[in-house]
């Protein structure tokens, strides 16, 4: 793996973007977007995560394997969440208590 050194300018811009997104998510939280409140908050959080991971954690310059590890980890988190929710969201569909 060849070391890739990013410029200070890049890092500074990323920091500014992160701070701007923090301000944005805080302000958006006070606006009534209905169900999209959650979506907006999480979408901004995902953007921030990508910025940190790609630039600060150098995933941008990493091997395919590292990228695979990251994606795999996130996929497993999704499995945990989704399959657990598959129970909690479908309770009551049958209209029989506890089924």
């Amino acid at each position: 793996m060849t070391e890739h050194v990013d410029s200070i300018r890049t890092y500074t811009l990323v920091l500014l973007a992160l701070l701007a997104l923090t301000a944005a998510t805080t302000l958006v939280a006070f606006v009534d977007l209905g169900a999209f409140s959650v979506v907006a908050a999480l979408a901004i959080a995902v953007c921030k995560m990508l910025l940190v991971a790609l630039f600060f954690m150098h995933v941008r310059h990493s091997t395919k394997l590292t990228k695979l590890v990251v994606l795999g980890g996130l996929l497993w988190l999704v499995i945990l969440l989704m399959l657990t929710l598959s129970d909690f969201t479908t309770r009551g569909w049958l209209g029989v208590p506890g089924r």
Partner: protein
Amino acid sequence: MGSLRLFPEQASTFAPDVDHLLYFLLAVAVFFSLGIFCSIFYFAIRYRRRSANELPRPIHGGMALEILWSVIPFGLTMVMFTWGASIYFNESRPPDNALDIYVVGKQWMWKLEHLGGQREINELHIPVGRAVRLTMTSEDAIHSFFVPAFRTKQDAVPGRYTTTWFTPTKVGKYHLFCAEYCGTNHSRMGGWIYVMAPRDYEAWLSGGASGGSLAENGQKLFDELACGNCHKPDGSGRCPSLTELFGKTVQLAGGGTVKADEGYIRESILQPQAKIVAGYGPIMPTFQGLVTEEGVVQLIEYIKSLGPPPAATH
């Protein structure tokens, strides 16, 4: 010691269904295990090493064979899934005209209540040939209501209701077990299910009657707790009317609806803020700690009695 049986008695409508699926699975299992065991025996003897230096020709595999022995078992497993799931689905949906019994598990006994107010501990008397629906909860740890002869089992979970049902098909006395480990006397938390001929059952019911039916006791409790101050029957109170509520679909404040079943009423008594009826404020205090599980059951039956009875319970 008793005689050695290999299969349990079949005493509910589910029992033959489950056993038939078992026979199918047994047949598949025997077929595959015999196939594998015989092949191994045959190969092990036929191709035993005859000299220290022999070198078999390598065979690296065959895709056709791999696909064959993936697809055939997969097809069989899908039969198993569909068959098993259809039984499960049936076991999950009690018929409307089922006889209602309330079950409360606690360390280490089963408390059972009939609509007429008859209470039993670790014994349940039911008529043969009639669907019985159990609405269950627990006062402490998780328990599990297990009747092997009926092939039914359902956990009783604290804090909510679970449901199971069965139709007994044979008069007799059957084991009731707790199947979910619940502490010291877990193995003694059980008793008997008595399936009786309808006439014997009626006789038992009249003999075992005690102070009032569930609904009557529920009404007393309703008055004691002064629920009627807010829940006025004509809907003029600060809280919704409970008349003809049971079984209806209720509009909720946050949008969405909920079916007014036992679980919903229980939740509304113990955690009234969880689901607020549209048009009303979150003003009802919680009755958690003030009403026992038995009390909740009585209130539910009282509320049921206020509306059109859910198809022929009486």
